């Protein structure tokens, strides 16, 4: 046996002493599972995302990256005691709103989304979210998120914003 053969034999025996057959299988399994999940991980395409921040979640209503929030500018009601479609307790939804057209990656469809403000308490102040895709200045009010859409409420104080699917957007 030459010196090279002795070296490989010794290193193989050391590896065998440190490693059980079960651990090899477990490691292999983890690698395979990770590879299978890799295409499903969320991909950061948000221009406002920054290094060190949690990955955006297109299916999490408490994340600014949630798909329905594509044209929002305000505080997410889902972080303020409400949900993406329900105003927090003690507030009132605005009867008027602006709209956006958002793409749902889960079914590949574009939806018309109404952004209604919830009114009657001062600003929630949690989960500030500005995306403004398709948003237009106030000369096109139906697409404008600068206006206070609580303006016509009995109590016009802005608290947060919900996003409500109106239907599939026509091409």
């Amino acid at each position, binding site marked *: 046996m030459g010196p090279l053969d002795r070296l490989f034999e010794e290193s193989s025996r050391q590896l065998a002493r440190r490693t059980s057959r079960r651990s090899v299988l477990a490691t292999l399994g983890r690698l395979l599972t990770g590879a299978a999940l890799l295409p499903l991980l969320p991909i950061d395409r948000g221009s406002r995302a920054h290094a060190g921040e949690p990955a955006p979640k297109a299916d999490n209503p408490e994340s600014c990256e949630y798909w329905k929030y594509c044209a929002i500018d305000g505080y997410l009601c889902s972080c303020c005691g409400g949900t993406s479609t329900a105003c927090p307790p003690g507030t009132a939804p605005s009867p008027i709103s602006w709209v956006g057209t958002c793409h749902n990656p889960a079914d590949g469809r574009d939806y018309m989304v109404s952004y209604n403000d919830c009114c009657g*308490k001062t600003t929630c102040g949690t989960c500030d979210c500005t995306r403004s895709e398709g948003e237009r*200045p106030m000369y096109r*009010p139906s697409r404008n998120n*600068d*206006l206070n859409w609580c303006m016509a409420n009995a*109590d016009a*104080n802005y608290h947060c914003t919900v996003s409500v699917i109106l239907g599939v957007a026509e091409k």
Partner: protein
Amino acid sequence: MVSSARWLAVWRLAAVLLPGTLAAAPPPLPAEHISVQQLPPSSHHWVYVFDDAFANEIDMRVHLYDGDHYRRLGQIDAGYYSSFNLSPDGATTVVATTYFARGSRGTRTDVVEFTDNHTLAVTGEIVLPPKRAQTLPTPFNLAYSGDARLLYVSYVTPAASFGVLDPVKKTVLGEIDTAGCVLVIPSGTYRVSSICESGRLLTVSLDAAGKELGRAMSEPFFDADRDPVFVQGIPTARGYAFLSFLGQVHEIDFTGEQPRIGAPWSLVTAAERGVWRPGAQQVGAIHIGLGRLYVPMHRGGEGTHKDGGTEIWVYDTATHRRVARWPMATHGLTRIIAVQVSQDDAPVLFAATDSAQLAVIDPRDGHIRHIEKHFGQTPWQMLIP
């Protein structure tokens, strides 16, 4: 533990050994008297900074800041979802705002408040119908006529119109319907233009009592679908410049009976178009004497028009050439969300960021003279008399 008697003995010994020490103790401070600071004479480098207080919007305010001595001079309160402007002579700040009877709730009162800029005291008000446009700051939410005898305030209910006020007698003179067009761009003595969804300008002429004399619609100058303009117009020598989302500059001459729309020019090359774009709450400033336009620019796509600039790009307003790019991150500045420049011969450029920094910059070479690190909460608009 050392007894108090022993401490007393040590003290007496020190007094004997060091006789000059106790005798040299400074006298006690004199009693003080409370006073109110008076503003020094105003400067071309004082800037009025509107803080939208986005996390608590019933508490907006305007800070007065000295760009030479780097200090705050005072504050004007601005209430809820407010707008502000300065009188043509710079002596008065006007704030259009809303109050609720119980602080955050209760009966709504819309009001225009007048503040004396020499004392920062509120000197008067005009109560409005509850129609005031509650929107983000622009120069055209609230504006004086050229002779300062009328004051215009934008209404959105969401039906659009504007109120005509008498700032001298502190009265509401009337309301002008604007057929869906928004904002009040003052020109001439008593002309008001509003921006329409069709890309046109509606111009209404008034008499001295605020009654409508006539109206006319311009040709369209932008396409709200393909490339809308920001409503934060930038004052020029003969009117205002409006930037588009994709970086077109539309200069409009408001000196005549009707606005004259100039040929647009571009902030970006063909290769940069759609990649680099303007974005901010206050999206540009022009030094008329220097002939320089300053624009916060960033890399970004559709929907990023409210993202601030990572750089300030500088243009020659005569040749339309870009003459400089000033990256901001290298100075520790985050995205530039508002810019303003003084118009004097030794000018100052102010740049506010999305993390509430306020930078004082030399507009001739981009040298950053000073940075305020915590300037309020959301400084989104700046005006200089």
